[in-house]
């Protein structure tokens, strides 16, 4: 029942291919100085896309960490559009428009976990349907925010899904230095909620786990902690050199488990995928990325953006600063 059917699996795979393809292009764009620091999605596609496809975009919120945006295609083109603005350092990169139920990336590790709990809690107070899914890494799980929020959610029975994407690394820190816990899902015991570890390279298993957690949550039974185990196939970010610390043999073992490889084989066997299809999807993915990039580059940057949106309306201090700013810009253009 909660397993994806063939059609869904095909859509999941398509989104995975798109994410991987766009990630590759973005990496190159970063190398050419066209965009800022990027945290590649490579190796995380099955966990992210599989989870998102188990959600209802009209009712369910997604709170990503920072590695997920390319995997959130199901939530609509606005996510990529905002992400490209974000990658340019444009203020509108933080504005994913209503009604898209996706929150922008969170840099402060684990800080969005209590937001997710509050949002889920608020939705249930308002008798709104739906759940909240929050992504975070194995590293982020060491922050107090994760625990405080998990514990609070357990008490409130808030309809929230905690999805820990354990990619074995937090920058250079391996999981055995991150925690002595048996696995990350066993931390659920601290909150009195169910915890489950799934193979995050298998999108069906992730889909299934999220579907069940969703059922559980909408039935008023509260949160679930899911750990999806994957392996970070790339660098932490474009600023990182993983050869300093990732054992080469671990990486090559992980590459053999690349989530795209086994699913590709499975779908091909079922005649649900072909090389032509692959080529077509990749081409469209790149076109879509280029389009979003162009759109982002052409989004005007207003000088006012610096001081807007701090408060709903200017304080007298801000009004003075606004004057100073325009005066100093005039002077420097003199």
């Amino acid at each position: 029942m909660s397993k994806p059917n063939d059609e869904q699996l095909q859509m999941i795979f398509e989104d995975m291919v798109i994410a991987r393809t766009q990630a590759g292009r973005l990496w190159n764009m970063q190398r050419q100085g066209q965009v800022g620091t990027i945290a590649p999605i490579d190796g995380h596609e099955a966990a992210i896309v599989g989870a998102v496809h188990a959600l209802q975009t009209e009712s369910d919120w997604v709170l990503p960490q920072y590695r997920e945006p390319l995997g959130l295609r199901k939530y609509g083109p606005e996510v990529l559009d905002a992400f490209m603005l974000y990658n340019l350092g444009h203020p509108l990169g933080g504005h994913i428009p209503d009604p898209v139920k996706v929150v922008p990336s969170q840099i402060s590790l684990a800080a969005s976990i209590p937001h997710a709990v509050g949002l889920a809690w608020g939705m249930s107070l308002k008798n709104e349907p739906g759940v909240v899914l929050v992504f975070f890494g194995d590293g982020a799980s060491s922050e107090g925010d994760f625990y405080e929020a998990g514990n609070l959610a357990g008490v409130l029975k808030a309809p929230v899904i905690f999805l820990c994407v354990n990619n074995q690394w937090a920058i250079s820190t391996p999981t055995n230095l991150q925690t002595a816990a048996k696995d990350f899902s066993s931390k659920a015991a601290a909150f009195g909620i169910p915890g489950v570890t799934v193979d995050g390279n298998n999108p069906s298993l992730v889909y299934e786990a999220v579907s069940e957690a969703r059922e559980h949550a909408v039935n008023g039974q509260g949160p679930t902690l899911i750990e999806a185990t994957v392996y970070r196939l790339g660098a932490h970010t474009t600023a990182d050199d993983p050869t300093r610390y990732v054992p080469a043999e671990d990486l090559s073992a992980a590459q053999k488990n690349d989530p795209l490889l086994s699913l590709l084989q499975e779908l091909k066997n079922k005649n649900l995928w072909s090389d032509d299809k692959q080529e077509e999807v990749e081409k469209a993915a790149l076109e879509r990325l280029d389009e979003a990039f162009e759109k982002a580059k052409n989004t005007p940057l207003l000088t006012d953006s610096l001081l807007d949106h701090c408060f709903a309306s200017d304080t007298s201090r801000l009004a003075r600063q606004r004057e100073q700013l325009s005066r100093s810009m005039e002077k420097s253009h003199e």
Partner: protein
Amino acid sequence: MSEKTSELSMLEAINETLHSEMARDDRIVILGEDVGRNGGVFRATEGLIEKFGDTRVVDTPISEAAIAGSSVGLAMAGLVPVAEIQFLGFSYQAMHQIAGQIARLRYRTQSRFEPQITIRAPFGGGVRTPELHSDSLEAQFANIPGLKIVLPSTASDAKGLLTSAIRDPDPVLFLEPLRGYRGIRDMVPDDEHVVPLGKANLVKKGDDVVIISWSYQVELSKRVADSLEKAGISVAVLDLRSIVPLDIEAISQIVTHCGRVVVVQEAPETGGFASEVIATINDECFWSLEAPVIRVSGFDVPYPVGMLENLYVPDEERIRLAVLKSLEGS
């Protein structure tokens, strides 16, 4: 609207305001440690859980970061959280959520989400609390853009400002002086009472010197001003009411008028908000100053234990000496 008033303590005024705002706006949710069944450790939230139920008045686990952090989520859901941090000193546990998240929610999402969040917290000395209960941290918050910081000095203002704070679309830190909870009583309008944020109050006119202050120190400043009046010295008292937004115009006006200024704060001297007041005076009306501004502050040590408290907290005597010193300087 009727003009009827009743004499209330600041605590009663706060409690009454929470009752009336919750009745007015059913999006309001109260959350915090012991705010429900116990009515708050000072009884500020007394009677709310009985009236509005335990889904709108929520006793949370002891997790200040989760109280602040889940308030972000509640606001995203369209609710209006009014959170209590049991003592301001424990807002440090939530600093990454208050400074890193609540204060930035509007800016980082370019107003997709509205942080209509109020955080109430008692603070300030004079009542011999254990450590971290009394510390005046307002200046540390004032350097965090995106937060409004409101500090009433009367029961009437507590009502009027808390009403504005809860209705304000921006996050407001509402800081309540422990000494004022029962120690301050005045006439409070019975009906809806709204005091806008960012308007200082010239609580006493005067010509020779102005004392600029906020929170409980306004009370002390008024007493000093009144007693000096009898000695023929005309002392104005300006209550800032909020330090963000800061009423720059009101400061300018009264400083220009008096030419001499004393700023009183309970916080440590270095980096206390008095410094910002002085810097603002320097910016706006430097040429009106007839003498250096005098600061009266706590000392640059952690808020001390009970036996040392009286030495630490500015008292009427220290304020009086500062006023006299300001009159000497020329």
